[in-house]
């Protein structure tokens, strides 16, 4: 019997698959020189939920994240965002798709030559009002231009964002170098939120933070996900945070997703490595399982060659008609 309020995995046979899954990754492979990092990743990101990808250092979690936004192209495989395959998209198509995303980087990636206010309003200066009518103008055949904010409107938005994320107004004129790690992450999140994204990506958001700041950032991510109804994808190896806020967890090991499901389902895993990974921190209690029932996953050789033959490489993917 599911717990009250617990998210249920969508029915695979449901006709409204795209409604349930915001992003669907199928069989992506990626090599960097001699290193074969992703070896056929299949991953589903549930719409409107907090999806956490866990895995050890150097396993390719950030590589998956960069693929989701089109910052990297897979050697093979497909990535569907809202039902559209983003792999064959051109730079212009990718920029259109990226407007659905917001991203919080591990160290916030704030522009260090800009003040906090300038950082927060930067996407607004570049793209204008995200609520503007973007429908096709029949007279030009192109999307209508977004309304531009005035300086005063943008300042007010920055003030509101700082308020929402419990940051003092005195930070407005400060520069990123003058902020603490937690403050930087909040400003980074404020910058990601101003464009009202549908999908928010977090790259190890609690790394390097003290336990109190970690809990604050966790609460912030949960609040943002619920209040703004956004799909969250979090990369983490912080097990306490993962099981505290995650609706769905996927475990990456040896370049493939070895387990996916709700936190309760992941706790029942029989994968030996995953049990060690979750259990070592002591933050999560796992049920006892007989040693002989455990699945031992061998870590593949990093230099092993990717599979040969089509479909492989970008040139095999048909480009969309313009």
């Amino acid at each position: 019997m599911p717990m009250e309020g617990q998210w249920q995995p969508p029915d695979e046979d449901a006709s409204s698959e795209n409604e349930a899954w915001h992003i669907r990754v199928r069989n992506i492979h990626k090599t960097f020189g001699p290193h074969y990092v992703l070896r056929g990743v299949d991953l589903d990101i549930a719409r409107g939920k907090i999806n956490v990808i866990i895995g050890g250092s150097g396993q390719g979690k950030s590589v998956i994240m960069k693929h989701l936004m089109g910052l990297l192209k897979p050697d093979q495989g497909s990535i569907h965002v809202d039902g559209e395959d983003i792999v064959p998209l051109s730079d212009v198509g990718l920029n259109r798709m990226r407007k659905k995303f917001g991203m919080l980087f591990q160290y916030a990636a704030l522009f260090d030559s800009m003040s906090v206010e300038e950082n927060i309003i930067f996407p607004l200066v570049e793209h204008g009002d995200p609520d503007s009518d973007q429908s096709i103008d029949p007279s030009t055949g192109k999307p209508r231009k977004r309304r531009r904010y005035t300086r005063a409107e943008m300042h007010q938005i920055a003030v509101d964002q700082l308020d929402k994320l419990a940051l003092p107004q005195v930070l407005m004129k400060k520069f990123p170098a003058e902020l603490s790690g937690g403050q930087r992450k909040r400003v980074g999140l404020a910058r990601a939120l101003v464009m009202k994204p549908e999908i928010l990506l977090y790259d190890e958001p609690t790394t390097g933070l003290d336990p109190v700041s970690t809990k604050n950032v966790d609460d912030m991510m949960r609040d943002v996900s619920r209040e703004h109804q956004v799909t969250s994808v979090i990369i983490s190896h912080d097990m306490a945070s993962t099981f505290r806020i995650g609706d769905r967890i996927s475990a990456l090991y040896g370049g493939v997703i070895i387990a996916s499901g709700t936190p309760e389902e992941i706790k029942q895993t029989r994968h030996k490595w995953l049990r060690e990974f979750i259990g070592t921190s002591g933050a999560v209690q796992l049920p006892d399982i007989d040693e002989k029932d455990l699945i031992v996953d061998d870590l593949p050789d990093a230099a092993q060659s990717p599979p040969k033959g089509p479909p492989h490489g970008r040139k095999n993917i048909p480009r969309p008609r313009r």
Partner: protein
Amino acid sequence: MWLERLAGWVDRLWRPVLRVLALLIETVGAHLLLLLNVVRWMLRPPLRLGVLIEAMVFVGFESLPIVLLISLFVGAVFALQLSSALRTFQAQAYVGATVGLALSRELAPVFTAIVVSARAGAGMATELGSMRITEQIDALATMAINPLQYLIVPRVIAGTIMVPMMAMLFNCVGMFGAYIVAVEVQNVDRGVFIANARWLLDANDLTQGLVKALVFGCVLTLIACNQGYNAGGGAKGVGVATTRSVVGSFVTILVLDYFLTDLWLTFVTHAGGS
């Protein structure tokens, strides 16, 4: 037996040469591709005028004091050397003309480009390298902003516009320095200095310098941006990118200078009969 040994020697000698050649082709190709991308993104909206003006101020206005100071002393030292050398042939009257020719054709574009690549080029490589390793460039891409269009296009345009403008100022201030030394210190006749300079110098000389400065301005910003944009490996990587940017710019400017001069003399000066 000896044939095999000879083949081995040839192979050992050729391998590093081929490696250098491959590296050279790869580097030139990468910069040409970057230039193509810059042109492609330059033609697409939006035109970020504020960012462009900021880049022009950084490349041009902020480099101006050092460029002017150097030009004054380059003109002065050339006048001093030539006064001394030409005195042997009783040809001191040609100091102004010779300095003017050297400045407009060679010294102004080359020195301006070298100063700008040492100051602004190094600054660009460091800034972009630092943005790369702190994921600020990735952050731009995640905000649906093409980093190349936002970061590199304005810098390359700024370099291409500002270096020729500064080279022209270099000419003026350099000639002023030469005039002071030749006329006031070496006692060359004022009228003769000016008359000979006007007689020998023409628009072709100034245009040659202008075209060179334009090419150097574009090339040095491309090299700096390419090094910074593709930096990796933390703080050390940024340092390496900056060093490569400065050294690469110096070498490229001097090598290009020779070929541009050759092309100009062949296709413009001699073809035009001047």
